[in-house]
């Protein structure tokens, strides 16, 4: 049975969004989830960059997987990821200079995003191109939606804005004595928000809870 998009393929995409989520379940890629989620726009650009880097890297590594000498496979993976990241950085600098300024060092740090290397080593080195592509796409989206969710909460309560725009109703709230929570903008709150997401996820799915 060979099909272009069968059950197994769906699972590759769907699992990382929920029960195999790289951030909330595998706790990978936490560093960037803390650092760039103060604003929704940054989270979106970061997500797009990671989707591009992950899908391309997984496909390239999967194509090369039977030719890569085993002893230097990690170096080859790193080389592919690093050059793709350098490419993204150049393109952002040229076409989206404002976003590039905001994300500054974090684009370079995509290289160290554990999810990317993790999926290359665990999946793309042993699977065909199409499967590897889907697996990367699923994991990148799994990473991305957490990023966007955290950034949504932090920008809304930290700055009282979304995507840099003021929320119309907030003026009345300010008059009632409501204040933006500056703590939301600081990194620790990202951890708390991620923690809350993990909590909700585990509360809804008992299979995720480890037995002691």
């Amino acid at each position, binding site marked *: 049975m060979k099909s272009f998009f069968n059950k197994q393929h769906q699972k590759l995409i769907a699992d990382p969004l929920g029960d195999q989520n790289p951030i909330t379940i595998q706790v990978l890629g936490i560093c960037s989830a803390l650092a760039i989620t*103060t604003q929704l726009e940054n989270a979106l650009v970061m997500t797009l960059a990671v989707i591009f880097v992950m899908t391309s890297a997984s496909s390239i590594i999967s194509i090369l997987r039977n*030719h*890569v*000498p*085993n*002893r*230097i496979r990690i*170096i*080859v993976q790193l*080389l*592919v990821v690093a*050059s793709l990241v*350098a*490419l993204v950085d*150049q*393109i952002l*600098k*040229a*076409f989206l*200079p*404002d976003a590039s*300024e905001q994300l*500054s060092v974090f684009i370079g740090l995509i290289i160290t995003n554990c999810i990317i290397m993790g999926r290359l080593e665990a999946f793309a080195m042993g699977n065909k191109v199409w499967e590897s592509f889907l697996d990367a796409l699923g994991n990148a989206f799994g990473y991305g939606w957490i990023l966007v969710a955290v950034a949504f909460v932090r920008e809304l309560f930290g700055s009282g804005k979304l995507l840099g725009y003021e929320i119309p109703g907030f003026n009345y709230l300010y008059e009632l004595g409501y204040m933006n929570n*500056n703590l939301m*903008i*600081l990194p620790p709150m990202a951890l708390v928000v991620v923690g809350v997401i993990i909590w909700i996820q585990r509360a809804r799915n008992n299979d995720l809870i480890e037995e002691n």
Partner: protein
Amino acid sequence: MNKESNLYTFLFAIIMVLIVGTALALTSEVLQPMKKQNAADKKMIDILSAIGLNVSRSEAKTQFEKYIKEQTVINSSGQMVDGSAFDIDVLFQHRDKTLSPEAKKYPFFTAIKDNQTYYIVPMAGNGLWGPVWGFVALEDDYQTIYGAAFDHKAETPGLGAEINTDFFELPFKGKKIRNNDGQFVSIEVKKGGAEEGNMSQVDGITGGTITSDGVSEMLFNTLKIYDDYFLNLNNITDSTLVI
């Protein structure tokens, strides 16, 4: 060929690096003009923000040409030297430890807005985690600050990072870099708040003392050079008037 042999491993690595290197070099080369343009636009936006103008990237160049009438370069002893003021990167000069203060060049921009002349001085210094920089606009008495715009690379969010916000920048307006006796004192970013009625102090940032001190030091070191130059300029014009 045996995939695990040394020869294959080396060949694979070499070919891989060549391909990747070429691809990246080509992209960088192709995108170079756009990146340069973006950096120049950003600088124009920053310069204009010191005289209270908020311009977008797309209109940066036209607005810059509209307001900035003259660009001047001086050296550390306050003499005019040749060179393009816009192309001097003060931050780069600041971080270049091999460059002595005497060898540095100090650019400034003469702007005319609403028939008033302003002198915009770029500067760079050290914050807590990385460099801080900014542009300060002086009025045509060479001592009253018309506007200031600061920025930083990596100061603490919510604390030192606040130097690029209005609440820190606006109090600079109207402050004087010389005291009542005409002595150069620069502007001090004062921990615990500026003294009542002191025209040469602004409020520091609570929790951002080292960044605040960095800004103070940057203002002092930079404005001193320009103050000497402007003072000489004044004397020369005065004496010509006498003649």
